């Protein structure tokens, strides 16, 4: 029973499943039928479309035929032998024959005779080679005898059986041909003129060459070949730069080539290597040239051989160098000579003074007077020559300090007042600085200029008056302009003389020289110095009425205006309390010198031997100013300054100290962060001024009174007086130190030179250089300086000789130094 039920259910399920399946299959079958149906429909519509297309095609064919008939182009067909089978109306128009007349005739019959063979060959080629499509141009003669140019596109059409015929579309191009012909004429004319133009250039010794955009030579002209020694064959097709240009100039040429591509032309110089290896200089004018499309297609170079000129230039350069060398030697000689002459002259003058003091008769007194006057004159002459040669050789270096113009004028008037009184002429000053009399400039130079002008005025004025004018004219932010004038009521000059007045060695006339004396160099020195200061000395004069010398200068207005001390005072107070300096200096003598001055002025200081110590002590102490030597052992001044400048704290002034007179050293010093520069040897005044300039505190010097001491005349007494003043204890100290050390130092120098250790020679020479000045042996300072610069110029032989000489001179001078020490000791005791 149960089993039966189950079986029934199974049967039922299977029946239902079958129905389900049938239903599913029926749906699928329906879908299939529908799909089939729509496929059929698609097929039908395709058939429709095809018949429509065919109809369209037929229509368009007739349309095309219309087009062919009405076409602006000539359309025709010929069989394989060139007999016309079809031609459109435009074609028959062009030929001037009717369509009927044309069909059946041969195509070639219409072509004018000269072109028949060409055309025949052309068609044969197309026939044989099987070229399917090609373009060709040829002239035909129409029925009325006119010539028409035809440009035709011909199509070789194959028929299935292997035969073929030609279809052609052609156009009447007579108009274009004619214009082309005209163009050709003009082009030819152009080319002819170009050839003419080029041959002109060729005749002018100019070598022409053309390169393409890649720098390959495409054309050369006769002259260029002559210039380079190559034949045209050897050049054409070669890389121009590789073949012709000397290596160093390749880059120049390449840049030039680039210029051409940018349509730029230019002129430049280069070196060419000829075929025979000889190198020549050429001036090249390069210009791009263009093709008919207006594009740069290469460049044309016009070459001019300038070797001769170049050689001349080189020779000139050598000649110039020689001249400069000769001039320098002359100046050196002059400088040396002047010095050598000055020393014995000092002796003569000194001796004649001594002689004067002894018992003499009138005659002898007169002789001595003459002797001493001549000696003085000679001395003046020598120092003037020295000045001029210094200025001319550029050795004169401007030394700017702050000073008071009115004080300068005051001193001048006072000095010249005495001389003027003797000659019963008056000297007046007219100073108007509008409260701005403190300026920064080279005081020494300005002083010398005015001394010369005033001296000159007095010399040529017998009566009347001399006037010194200094006027403040105008101001800019940091500069003021001043006007200077010295006028007299003297003999004056005629225009002729006036013209030559500033030329060296050209005194008005020999007559004048005899009558008035003098070297005549004063004015030319003044004129040069004024130029060095940035002005121009001018003169005006009226014969027998007087002369006027004047100039204007733009001078730096001093910042230290209010604190400028009156240097002229005979006594003073010191107001340098509370400031502290750091002195960095490795040279014993210099140390001593600076310290004694600072002690004298009661200025607090620390002193160290090298840059490293300076940096260390700077970190622990506070200073108002640093004096820093440049070349020192362990760490030099530049480096120390660099480090100090990077440390935190106030940027205090750092003043470089050096014996070098080279401007470059100064620049280096300023670059490393230094504030100013003090050249060794310096005077006490220089030092105090420097302190005042940068701290603004006055360091007035107490002028000491007492016995005066006359240094040995062979020494630079003027300088010694300047640096030591009345402080003989101090002078004794310095002389003693010198005596103790100098022999060792100079021997050291000599040893270095003998051992070819030139770097050491230079250092050592630099070190001893200022020391000699401290005992008045200024000429040995000069000698040391020469050694330094000879090392620089690598003239080792001269260096050795000079070191030898220095050693000898030092040895020779030792007795004098010893005597001076003895005398100074006696005096100070």
């Amino acid at each position: 029973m149960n089993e039966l039920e189950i079986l029934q259910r199974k049967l039922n399920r299977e029946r239902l499943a079958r129905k389900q399946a049938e239903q599913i299959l029926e749906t699928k079958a329906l879908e299939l039928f529908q799909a089939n149906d729509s496929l059929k429909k698609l097929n039908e519509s395709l058939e429709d479309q095809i018949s429509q297309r065919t109809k369209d095609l037929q229509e368009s064919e007739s349309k095309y035929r219309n087009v062919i008939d009405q076409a602006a182009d000539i359309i025709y067909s010929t069989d394989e032998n060139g007999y016309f089978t079809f031609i459109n109306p435009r074609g028959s128009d062009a030929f001037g024959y009717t369509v009927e007349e044309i069909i059946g005739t041969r195509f070639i019959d219409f072509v004018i005779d000269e072109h028949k063979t060409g055309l025949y060959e052309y068609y044969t080629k197309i026939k044989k080679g099987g070229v399917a499509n090609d373009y060709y141009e040829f002239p035909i003669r129409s029925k009325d005898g006119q010539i028409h140019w035809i440009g035709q596109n011909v199509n070789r059409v194959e028929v299935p059986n292997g035969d073929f015929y030609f279809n052609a579309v052609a156009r009447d191009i007579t108009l274009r041909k004619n214009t082309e012909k005209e163009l050709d004429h003009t082009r030819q004319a152009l080319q002819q003129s170009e050839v003419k133009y080029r041959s002109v250039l060729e005749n002018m010794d100019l070598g022409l060459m053309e390169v393409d955009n890649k720098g390959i030579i495409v054309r050369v002209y006769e002259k260029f070949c002559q210039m380079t020694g190559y034949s045209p064959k050897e050049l054409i097709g070669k890389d121009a730069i590789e073949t012709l240009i000397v290596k160093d100039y390749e880059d120049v040429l390449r840049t030039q080539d680039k210029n051409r591509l940018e349509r730029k032309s230019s002129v430049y110089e280069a070196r060419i290597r000829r075929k025979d290896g000889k190198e020549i200089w050429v001036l090249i004018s390069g210009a791009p040239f263009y093709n008919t499309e207006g594009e740069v297609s290469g460049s044309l170079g016009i070459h001019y051989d300038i070797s001769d000129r170049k050689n001349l230039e080189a020779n000139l350069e050598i000649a110039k160098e020689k001249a400069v060398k000769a001039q320098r030697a002359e100046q050196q000689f002059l400088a040396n000579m002047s010095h050598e002459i000055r020393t014995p002259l000092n002796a003569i003058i000194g001796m004649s003074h001594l002689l004067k003091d002894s018992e003499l008769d009138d005659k002898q007194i007169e002789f001595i007077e003459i002797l001493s006057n001549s000696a003085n004159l000679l001395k003046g002459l020598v120092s003037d020559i020295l000045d001029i040669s210094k200025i001319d050789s550029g050795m004169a270096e401007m030394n700017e300090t702050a000073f008071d113009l009115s004080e300068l004028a005051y001193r001048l008037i006072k000095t010249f007042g005495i001389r003027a009184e003797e000659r019963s002429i008056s000297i007046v000053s007219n100073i108007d600085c509008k409260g701005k009399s403190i300026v920064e400039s080279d005081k020494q130079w300005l002083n010398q200029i005015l001394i010369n002008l005033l001296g000159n005025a007095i010399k040529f004025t017998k009566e009347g008056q001399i006037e010194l004018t200094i006027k403040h004219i105008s101001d800019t932010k940091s500069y003021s302009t001043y006007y200077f004038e010295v006028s007299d009521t003297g003999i004056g000059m005629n225009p002729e003389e006036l013209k030559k007045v500033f030329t060296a060695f050209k005194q008005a006339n020999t007559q004048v020289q005899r009558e008035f004396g003098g070297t005549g160099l004063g004015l030319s020195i003044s004129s040069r110095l004024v130029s060095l200061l940035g002005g121009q000395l001018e003169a005006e004069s009226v014969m027998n009425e007087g002369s006027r010398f004047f100039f204007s200068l733009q001078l730096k207005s001093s910042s230290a205006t209010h604190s400028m001390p009156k240097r002229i005072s005979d006594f003073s107070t010191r107001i340098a309390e509370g400031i502290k300096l750091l002195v960095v200096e490795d040279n014993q003598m210099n140390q001593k010198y600076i310290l004694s001055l600072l002690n004298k002025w009661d200025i607090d200081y620390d002193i160290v031997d090298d840059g490293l110590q300076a940096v260390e002590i700077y970190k622990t102490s506070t200073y108002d100013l640093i004096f820093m030597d440049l070349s020192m052992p362990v760490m030099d001044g530049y480096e120390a300054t660099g480090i100090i400048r990077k440390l935190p704290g106030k940027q205090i002034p750092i003043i470089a100290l050096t014996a070098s007179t080279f401007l470059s050293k100064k620049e280096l010093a300023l670059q490393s962060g230094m504030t100013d520069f003090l050249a060794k040897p310096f005077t006490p005044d220089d030092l105090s001024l420097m302190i005042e300039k940068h701290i603004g505190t006055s360091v007035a010097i107490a002028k000491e009174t007492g016995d005066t001491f006359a240094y040995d005349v062979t020494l630079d007494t003027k300088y010694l007086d300047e640096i030591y003043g009345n402080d003989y204890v101090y002078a004794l100290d310095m002389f003693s130190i010198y005596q103790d050390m100098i022999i060792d130092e100079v021997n050291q120098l000599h040893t270095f030179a003998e051992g070819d250790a030139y770097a050491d020679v230079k250092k050592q020479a630099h070190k001893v250089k200022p020391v000699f000045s401290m005992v008045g042996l200024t000429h040995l300072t000069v000698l040391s300086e020469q050694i330094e610069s000879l090392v620089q110029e690598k003239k080792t032989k001269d260096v050795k000789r000079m070191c030898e000489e220095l050693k000898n001179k030092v040895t020779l001078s030792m007795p004098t130094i010893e005597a001076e020490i003895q005398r100074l000791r006696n005096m100070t005791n």
Partner: protein
Amino acid sequence: MKGIVFTEFLDMVEQKFGYEVVDQIIEESKLDSNGIYTAVGTYPHSEVVTLLMNLSDKVNIDPGALLKEFGKYLFDTFLASYPQFFAAVDNAFSFLHSIDNHIHVEVLKLYPDATLPKFISHETEDGAMIMTYMSERKMAALAEGLIEKSLAYYKEECTIQTENLKEDGSEVRFTIKRIS
């Protein structure tokens, strides 16, 4: 799920346990289709799951084991109906690679509404075949049965190691190594 899966499943149940069991599980399952299936139809996947679970209850055999057994059964059906797939290759690994690359692709062309698993297979350097089964229908056991029979068909002796990559069984890795 294609009807063939249902009809073959029920055929297997009938063969192994008798039509009485087929009748019972259909009756107990309360299915939308009332248990009426044709090979050309398509039915919800959940119905095969329900049938399987009820069968498992009834005969007290783990559903996984049943499904694997079904796989073995199904293999013979496939072999009979689609001999061309088996003739195309000459070894088991190539055949297994061809499921995803070829067989199931063809299946899908025939039945665009078929829901097929994804297999990613490759061979390691030491010659083992790694086959990863991926399907939301979680029927890896069915695959295992099919694989076992395939290996036997090509007369290859192999070990099959299975590893669940996802806990729910939607990603399973088979590692098949030849014994030699």
